[in-house]
């Protein structure tokens, strides 16, 4: 099968040092991975092509790159699956990090953010005479997140990082969850307090890109949602994010469906009155077009809301 590899090239030492696409045609086998093909290109067609790889078995996380627009491990991605009808595969370096050369990115920022969440166990209290004990159930729960190979795929495709590089990002937050949820760790509250700050757990936009691209099914966004839930449980200082979730739940409990104006008003509250005020021009324009929904006493509950409320109460009794 003749496949065209459209590879994004970049060499800072040449002038002009702008990225460009270069195409290579290669006869590929149905069993070939994208990494096999890239190595073949480097060995037979263009020795200047630069990439990073090591284990070739989806263990080391070195060969993460964007294949047809989404981050993936090149060693785990089959050419045959990715080739378009015209037999083209596009390969680019990871996004949301500086490119050193061709498909090699600078991971320093990635590691700094992982270090920022203090990825080590911080037990509290007196050291036990034997080992620290943890139930099998609690450790089994953590095996998914411990499977992270730090390849950076989730960070590459993170929509929140794309618009704000201060966001700590999905890989670091998943790592933070690994320790927050570890029963042997004693620093849960201080970890959650740190993650409650701007750039922390509330800045995720819940786009699920990190879930989709993770080669190890770590499910970073689900871990971020669990961090938020734990933050609310331990009563970290209220942020717009936490209030939004709390008010949302309360409104559903009361009416069964969403009272949108009330959600905005109560989420921002008096403390963020200026934010609420900033929405006023939009609200007025929507009002003129008959788009402002009924609110408060004018917003009707779903029929039989009392029955639905009993489910909320049953859930609360279980906590």
């Amino acid at each position, binding site marked *: 099968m003749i496949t065209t590899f459209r590879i994004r090239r970049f060499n800072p030492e040449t002038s002009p040092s702008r990225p460009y696409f270069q195409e290579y045609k290669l006869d590929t086998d149905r069993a070939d991975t994208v990494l096999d093909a890239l190595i073949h290109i480097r060995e037979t067609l263009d020795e200047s092509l630069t990439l990073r790889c090591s284990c070739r078995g989806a263990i080391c996380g070195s060969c993460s790159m964007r294949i047809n*627009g989404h981050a993936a491990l090149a060693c785990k991605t089959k050419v045959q699956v990715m080739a378009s009808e015209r037999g083209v595969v596009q390969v680019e370096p990871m996004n949301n990090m500086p490119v050193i050369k061709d498909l090699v990115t600078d991971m320093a920022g990635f590691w700094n953010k992982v270090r920022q969440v203090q990825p080590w166990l911080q037990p509290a209290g007196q050291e036990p005479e034997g080992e620290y004990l943890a139930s099998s159930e609690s450790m089994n729960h953590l095996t998914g997140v411990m499977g992270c190979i730090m390849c950076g795929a989730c960070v590459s495709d993170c*929509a*929140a990082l*794309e*618009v*704000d590089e201060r966001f700590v990002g999905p890989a670091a937050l998943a790592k933070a969850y690994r320790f927050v949820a570890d029963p042997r760790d004693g620093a849960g509250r201080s970890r959650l307090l740190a993650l409650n700050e*701007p750039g922390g757990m*509330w*800045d995720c*936009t*819940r*786009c*699920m*890109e990190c*879930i*989709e691209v993770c080669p190890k099914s770590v499910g970073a966004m689900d871990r971020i*949602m669990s961090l*938020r*839930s734990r933050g*609310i449980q331990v009563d970290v200082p209220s*942020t*717009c*994010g936490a209030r*939004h*979730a*709390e008010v*949302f*739940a309360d409104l*559903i409990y009361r009416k*069964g*469906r*969403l009272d*949108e104006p009330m959600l*905005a008003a109560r*989420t*921002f509250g008096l403390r963020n009155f200026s*934010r609420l005020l*900033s929405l006023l*021009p*939009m609200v007025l*324009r*929507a009002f003129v*077009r*008959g*788009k*402002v*929904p009924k609110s408060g006493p004018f917003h009707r509950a*779903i*029929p*039989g809301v009392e*029955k*639905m409320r*009993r*489910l*909320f109460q*049953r*859930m609360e009794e279980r906590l």
Partner: protein
Amino acid sequence: MKFAFFPGCVSKGGCPELYQSVMEVYPQLGLELEEMTTASCTGAGVLQEKDRKLGDVLNARTFALAEQAGLPIMTICSTCQGVMSQANHRLTTDPPYLAAVNEILSEEGLTYRGTTRIRHFVWILLEELGERGIRQRVRRPLTELRAAPFYGCYLQRPSEALGFQEQPDRAKSLELIMSWLGLEVVDFPGKTRCCGFPLLTINGKNSLRMVASHTLDAKHHGADILVTPCPLCHLNLDGMQSSAARQQQADIDLPIWHLPQLLGLAMGMEPKRLGLSRHLVSTQGVLDKLGSAVA
């Protein structure tokens, strides 16, 4: 084809023109809808931040109500579809979990057996009407319009819960349907990215950056309009577009359409009946452009 119709909160709240346009088009598509008036909000992924199991219980309640009526569910909101698909995936792949949820549902005398199918209006157009069913209803092919699809997140990810394996065309449903309506489909990288709506109350600046980024990207690729199957994406991309333009000091002015509006127009309906005058970014320029083609 009869469905239990789950419109979602926003299509009857901040985005009423979506509900309005669906009400206009569905009888002409051979669909029969029975609105689920007693169903609750899905939680939209926000309630789940506080308590995911509570969200699954409420959604299982909705699925059980549809199951009792013997009907599949039709949604018109990508977020509702995504949240319900994820909940249904968890419930139907984990029998002990389903049993635990049913134990709570028994409070209301309900049981969910795991048989309810949940499909977005877009998927019903794709899988039930198909190319032939849609093309034969088109009275005004919208050939002069260049339109870019904007899926947002919930109709794309996670693909496992959305049934992409069994129905691979779902990944390109908008492009297919838009082409059947005669439109020139504009491809652009932002079509499956996040609109920024979930960040609107948490980090407004970042949310507006996303609005500006995707609308400008689509415009630079030559789109006259952006078409979305999600009312939450619409709220942000249409409602907050002028704020995003101010923040990023850019001229955007890109109308955002709901897919049923496009469908209705192609089927020969009047723009006003489809709620096209209710957008914050005016649709008039596009309608003028279509004027010669539509006349």
